[in-house]
């Protein structure tokens, strides 16, 4: 059971890395995820059902998400609509498209067919079943994490980070900010869709409504991660995301299984997630205010000391 939470959290962490790119690194509030997560699940499932192979399924799922992100970024760039609205548009259209991909159905099972999660116990046959799944997922997540870390240390990755922090600087450095946004949002949704594709294989079916509420859940996981430690190094930022994703899933698990003691039902979890995000925002703001007040105090103290020093020099002279 505990392994299940970890597997669930690890698969989810890939989606959170996607949200990290849009919300934290690019500072682009992208809602495409609520659609592209299910797109990834649908594409992976249909690819597997049609016998394209597991690697192709994962690649196609990632690609489908990247295309969804591309569309959001293009709507934002070309029509000059706010990112939020561009994401909502794509997400809404994706609901219809996802059902199309699933062949007109809202739900397609992966029964009696090889998936990554039926393969893992074979590959790691020396491990008990649940641990084989955990090991396999862990390997996939670390692979993605390392690629992320490497990418955000390339010149391109660094410039995407700089764009999120200051668009004018990117323009001043002769870079087209729209192109960077397209790349960033595409990668973000590629990861989100890959995560959807993995979840479909883990749970054994794809569902057109799989992505509902993903964004807020992703934000919650990011914020939980940010409470763990503060850092500006991409290695630790992605590590923090993985921890945050697992902790979030564990909290939701606790809510689902022990919540009835306090009359919680599974349908309350979305409300709890929202409250979690709001609480995180409040705490983060209080912290920031406290640290800037602290910095102010320190500056005043430094200044006083300097003045005292000057006075003493004067007195000595």
């Amino acid at each position, binding site marked *: 059971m505990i392994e299940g939470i970890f597997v669930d959290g690890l698969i989810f962490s890939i989606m959170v890395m996607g949200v990290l790119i849009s919300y934290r690194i690019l500072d682009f509030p992208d809602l495409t995820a609520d659609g592209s997560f299910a797109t990834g699940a649908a594409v992976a499932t249909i690819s597997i059902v049609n016998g394209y192979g597991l690697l192709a399924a994962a690649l196609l799922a990632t690609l489908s998400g990247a295309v969804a992100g591309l569309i959001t970024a293009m709507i934002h760039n070309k029509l000059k609509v706010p990112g939020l609205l561009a994401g909502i548009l794509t997400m809404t259209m994706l609901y219809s498209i996802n059902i199309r991909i699933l062949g007109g159905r809202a739900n397609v099972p992966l029964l009696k067919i090889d998936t990554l999660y039926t393969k893992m116990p074979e590959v790691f046959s020396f491990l008990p079943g649940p641990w084989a799944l955990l090991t396999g997922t862990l390997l996939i997540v670390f692979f993605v994490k390392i690629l992320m870390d*490497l*990418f955000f*240390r*390339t*010149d*391109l990755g*660094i*410039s995407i*980070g*700089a764009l*999120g*922090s*200051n668009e*004018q*600087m*990117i*323009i*001043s*450095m*002769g*870079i*087209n*900010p729209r*192109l960077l946004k397209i790349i960033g949002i595409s990668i973000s949704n590629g990861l989100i869709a890959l995560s959807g594709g993995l979840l479909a294989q883990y749970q054994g079916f794809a569902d057109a409504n799989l992505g509902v509420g993903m964004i807020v859940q992703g934000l919650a996981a990011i914020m939980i991660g940010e409470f763990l430690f503060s850092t*500006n190094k991409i290695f630790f930022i992605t590590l923090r995301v993985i921890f945050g994703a697992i902790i979030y899933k564990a909290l939701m698990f606790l809510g689902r299984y022990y919540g009835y003691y306090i009359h919680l039902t599974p349908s309350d979890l979305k409300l709890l997630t929202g409250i979690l995000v709001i609480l995180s925002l409040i705490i983060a703001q209080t912290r920031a205010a406290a640290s800037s007040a602290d910095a102010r105090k320190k500056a005043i103290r430094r200044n006083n000391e300097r003045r005292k020093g000057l006075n003493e020099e004067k007195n000595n002279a």
Partner: protein
Amino acid sequence: MLNIEQISKVFYPGTVNEKVAIEYIDLRVLEGDFITVVGSNGSGKSTLFNLIGGTFPVTSGKITLNDKDVTHTPEYKRAFTIGRIFQDPTVGTAAKMSIEDNMITAYKKGMKGLKISLNNTKRAYFKEELKQLKIGLEDRLKDNVGLLSGGQRQALTLLMTVLSKPQMLLLDEHTAALDPRNAQIVMDLTTEFIEKYHLTTLMVTHNMQHAITYGNRLIMMDEGKIILDVRGEEKKQLTVLKLVDLFKKIKHQEYSSDEDLLAP
């Protein structure tokens, strides 16, 4: 180097808020020129820079850079030739990134690829470059830029701008937000870099003394027009008093002609 012909800028044309910010300006900037730009608030200095830099399009007129018509060239493309520094020290650098990440982005202009250029050779080079700022940034490569003071950030912006090798600098009151000591540090670095890299420069300043001391040419703007253009020997003879006098004389002429117009 830069040639501006009859450019104008009207904000919100055809509405009650219509505002003519630039009124048919001509300006020819030669290679190696260092032009100081003065004028009261709202006279159109920043708008002129924004038109040259390409932040927004001109309403009419033509802008030529190195004999190439750039009137419709997007800002990011003009940035290859033009380096800009603004009054607000937060505009030139990315606060959420480290000094070294900022510098690697500035190191070469243009779209970046999947190369990892930031290695120890680069770091050593950045350190050397930061040393010439003489404000201790060379030991803080991995610190986020958001932790720096306004003066430090502006000095870093200046360094990043020249490292990216523009031919021309547009400085829009780039020391105005700093305390006097830091303003002087940044101003000294500015002239040092301008000489070292032979940069053609336009500098807006509110400091009349600076406007007179620095550069080989001075222009004064008022209500969207260039009302005074002094260069060479004449500029060397300028004093703050003479400049104020000139301004009053021109303004007075304008007012009296306005009065003539209004007279029945």
